[in-house]
C-alpha cells in the first residue's frame, strides 16, 4: 500500500520530467523532421526544448539537467564525446564561475557597512534622495561587479533602514517596496552596462566569436550600452516613488540609527583596502587585457589573488558557489554551439523571418522586435542568462548586423522586471518576504515600457553615431 503511494507521489513530483521524456521520445521516434532541417539539427532542437521544460518546472536539480543536455548530444549522435566536452568549457563559463566566486569573496569582506555610510553621506535623510541614491549606486556598482553581488551587499542596508523606520515593515509597505525595488531594479538596469555586469553579456560575446561576428572590447561595450544605464536611473527613481508612495518623506531617525550601527565597524581596515584594490586590478584587467586573455580568465585570476592573500577561504568559496548554475551554463552554451553547427538556429531564424516577414515589411524592425520581445518574454520565465544562452544562436541567425542584434538581445535579457525569477536581484528582494509578486507587476510594466523606449532611442539615436 505504502509503496503504491510512494510511486504515485514520485509521479506527482516528477510529472514534468515524465512529460519531457515522453515528448522527447515521441518527437524523436514518430515525428519526421521538416525537409529543410537535417536530423542532427532536429535532435538538437528536441534536446533544447526538453531542457527548457525541465529548467522552467525544476523537477530535477540543475546539474542533472546540465548532464542530460550533455549526454543526450552524444546518445543522439549529434556529436562525439570529445567535441561535446570541448564545447562545454569556454571563457564564458570561466567568467560565470569566476564572477560567482568573486561575489562570495567581495560580500564576505563586510564592505557593505562602508557602502551604507557612503550612500547616506551622499543622499542625506530625505526618502526620495535615499531611493535615488540606492538606485544610482546599485546600477553603477552592478554594471561592474554584477547584480547578484550588489543586491547581496545592499539588501542589509535597505532592510536595516526599513526596520529602523518602523517596527513592523508591513506598516510601511510603500517605503519598504520603494527601497527594496530601488536595489533590485537599480542593479538590473545597471547589469547591462559592461560585459562584467552579468554572465549573459559574456555569453553573448562568446556567441559573437563562435558565429564569426567579430569581437567587442570592454570599453566598446560601455560606449554602446552605458548611456542607456545612465538614462534609465532617474526614470526608475520616478517610477518607484510614483508606484509605491513611501509613507515617510524623511528617514531622519532611521538614518541616524543606521549611522550609529555602521560606525561600530570602525575605520576601514587594511584587509578591506586590499579587497578593494584587488577588485580594481581585476576591473583594469577586464578593461585593458580582456581581448588578449578573455574576461573569464581575468575573473579566475582575481579569485586566485583573493585566495592567495587569504581574503577568502577555499572552503567558503566551495560552499557558497552555485556549481549547478556553472554546469548548466556550460551545457546550455554547448547545445547552443550545436544549434549553430547543425543549422538548427538558422532554420528557426528562417521560419521566424518567413512567417513574420509577411506581417512586418522592414527586415531591421523584424529582427529587432523578434530579438527583443522573444528575449524579454523568455527572461521573465527562465532567467536572463539562460535566455541568452538559448535564444542567442537564433537571433544571431536572423540576419542584419549581428553585433547590434546581440547588444539588443543582451540588453533585453535584463527586462526581467515582471517576476521574481528573472533576475537574481529580484529573487533576492523577494526572499525577504516583504515584497509580493504583484509588486513586481505593479512597477514592472512601467519599467518594461521605460526600457523598451530607452532601447529604441539607443538604437535609433545613439548607435548610428558610433
Amino acid at each position, binding site marked *: 500500500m505504502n509503496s503504491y503511494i510512494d510511486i504515485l507521489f514520485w509521479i506527482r513530483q516528477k510529472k514534468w520530467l515524465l512529460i519531457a521524456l515522453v515528448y522527447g521520445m515521441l518527437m524523436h521516434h514518430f515525428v519526421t523532421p521538416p525537409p529543410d532541417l537535417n536530423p542532427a539539427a532536429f535532435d538538437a532542437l528536441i534536446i533544447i526544448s526538453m531542457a527548457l521544460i525541465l529548467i522552467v518546472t525544476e523537477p530535477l536539480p540543475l546539474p542533472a539537467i546540465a548532464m542530460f543536455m550533455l549526454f543526450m548530444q552524444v546518445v543522439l549522435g549529434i556529436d562525439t564525446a570529445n567535441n561535446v566536452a570541448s564545447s562545454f568549457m569556454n571563457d564564458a563559463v570561466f567568467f560565470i564561475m569566476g564572477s560567482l566566486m568573486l561575489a562570495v569573496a567581495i560580500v564576505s569582506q563586510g564592505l557593505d557597512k562602508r557602502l551604507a555610510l557612503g550612500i547616506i553621506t551622499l543622499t542625506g535623510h530625505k526618502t526620495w534622495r535615499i531611493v535615488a541614491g540606492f538606485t544610482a549606486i546599485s546600477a553603477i556598482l552592478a554594471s561592474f561587479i554584477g547584480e547578484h553581488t550588489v543586491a547581496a551587499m545592499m539588501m542589509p542596508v535597505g532592510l*536595516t533602514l526599513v526596520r529602523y523606520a518602523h517596527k513592523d515593515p508591513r506598516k510601511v509597505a510603500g517605503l519598504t517596496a520603494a527601497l527594496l525595488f530601488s536595489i533590485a531594479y537599480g542593479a538590473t538596469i545597471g547589469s547591462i552596462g559592461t560585459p562584467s555586469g552579468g554572465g549573459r553579456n559574456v555569453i553573448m560575446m562568446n556567441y559573437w566569436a563562435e558565429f564569426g561576428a567579430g569581437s567587442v572590447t570592454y570599453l566598446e561595450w560601455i560606449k554602446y550600452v552605458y548611456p542607456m544605464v545612465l538614462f534609465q536611473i532617474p526614470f526608475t527613481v520616478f517610477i518607484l516613488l510614483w508606484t509605491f508612495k513611501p509613507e515617510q518623506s524623511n528617514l531622519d531617525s532611521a538614518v541616524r540609527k543606521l549611522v550609529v550601527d555602521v560606525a561600530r565597524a570602525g575605520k576601514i581596515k587594511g584587509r578591506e583596502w586590499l579587497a578593494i584594490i584587488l577588485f580594481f586590478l581585476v576591473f583594469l584587467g577586464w578593461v585593458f587585457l580582456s581581448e588578449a586573455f578573455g574576461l573569464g580568465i581575468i575573473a579566475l585570476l582575481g579569485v586566485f589573488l583573493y585566495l592567495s592573500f587569504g581574503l577568502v577561504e577555499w572552503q567558503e568559496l566551495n560552499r557558497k*558557489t552555485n556549481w549547478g548554475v556553472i554546469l548548466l551554463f556550460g551545457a546550455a552554451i554547448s547545445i547552443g554551439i550545436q544549434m549553430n553547427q547543425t543549422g538548427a538556429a538558422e532554420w528557426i531564424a528562417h521560419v521566424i523571418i518567413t512567417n513574420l516577414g509577411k506581417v512586418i515589411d522592414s527586415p531591421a524592425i523584424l529582427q529587432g522586435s523578434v530579438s527583443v520581445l522573444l528575449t524579454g518574454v523568455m527572461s521573465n520565465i527562465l*532567467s536572463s542568462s539562460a535566455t541568452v544562452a538559448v535564444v542567442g544562436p537564433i537571433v544571431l541567425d536572423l540576419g542584419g548586423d549581428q553585433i547590434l542584434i546581440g547588444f539588443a538581445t543582451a540588453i533585453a535579457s535584463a527586462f526581467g522586471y515582471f517576476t521574481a525569477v528573472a533576475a537574481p536581484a529580484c529573487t533576492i528582494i523577494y526572499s525577504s518576504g516583504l515584497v509580493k509578486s504583484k509588486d513586481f507587476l505593479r512597477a514592472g510594466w512601467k519599467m518594461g515600457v521605460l526600457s523598451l523606449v530607452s532601447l529604441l532611442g539607443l538604437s535609433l539615436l545613439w548607435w548610428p553615431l558610433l
Partner: protein
Amino acid sequence: MTKKKVPFDPKSLKFLTAVSSAEYSKPTLKMGALIASVFDASHGVVYVGERASEFHGSSVNLTRQNLDNWNIIHPGLEVLEWALQELKKLSPENEELAKIQFNPDHVYEEDGRVRVMLPDDKGCRIELVLREGELVDQLRKEIQLEGYDLAIIGGSQNKRHLAHSILQYLPSSIFVLQKFNPRKKYKLLLLVDDSIATIKSIEWGALIAEKLGWPVRTLTVSKTKRFGAGYQGAADKAKAYFDSRGIEVEQFFLTGDPVRTFVEFAGDNHFVIMGASTLNPVKQFLFGSKPIKTLEQTDVPILIVR
C-alpha cells in the same frame, strides 16, 4: 522512515502544526496547541516557505548570510519566533515553556531543513522547524522524518485544490482548520461507517469531546433506505464507546449521497471527524475518496484520522 506509534500512549504522540505567518496562522497555532495538550502530545511547528529558483539559490543564500551579520533574521525564523511566543501566551501556567528562549543563531541545518535549537527545553517537547519548497512535499518529508501522528494545517494553506494531495500523500492523520473560529462553540460530528478507520476516529473524537466539553453527534449515511448490519453495528459500537466514557451522544441516520449529506449536515457549526479512506491508493488517485471529496466541499474544520 515513519516510526510506528501505539495510539494514545500519552508521551509518544507527535503533532505537527504548519504555520505560514503571524497574520494568518494564529487560530491554527492556537488549535494545534490545544489539541496537543488534549492528547499530551509533543508539538512540532513547521514553517514552509517558498524556495528560491535554483538559478539564484546561491545568491539568496549569500544575501541571507550577509543579513545575519546585520542581525536581520530569515523571515521564516521570524514566524517561528512568533510561534514560540504565542505558545507561551497560550500556556501561561507552563513554567518550563516560559523558560525557553528563542535564539536565531542557534539553528541547525540537517536533512534539508533548519531546526531551531531550544537549549532550555526541559521536557516541553516543542520543535521549531523551517523548511523551503512545495508545501505537500515538505510536510510529507517532515512527517516521515519525525514520525508525526497528526498534521494540523490552516484553511488558508489548504487551498482546496491541495485537498487531494494532502489526504493522499501525507502519511499521518490530518486536521484541516478551514474557517476555524476559536471563539465559536462547535459540535463534534463523527461520521460513522463500517470501515476500520472509524474505530480510531471514535477514540480520537471521544478524547477531544471529553477535554473540550463539546456536544457529540454521530452521523451514519446509507445510499439506500436500508441500513445494513455493518453500518448499524458500527453506529451502535460508537454509541456504546461514548456511553462507556460518560459522553452523551446524539445519533443520526440519513439516506443519500454520503459526501453531499455529510457536507449539508455539517453546515457551518460542526467540527467533523472521519476515518481516512481504506480504498486502494491508485483508485483514490483516479477517483478520489469520501474524505477527499468531503474536504473539498466543506468549509468546517475537519479531522481525518488515519
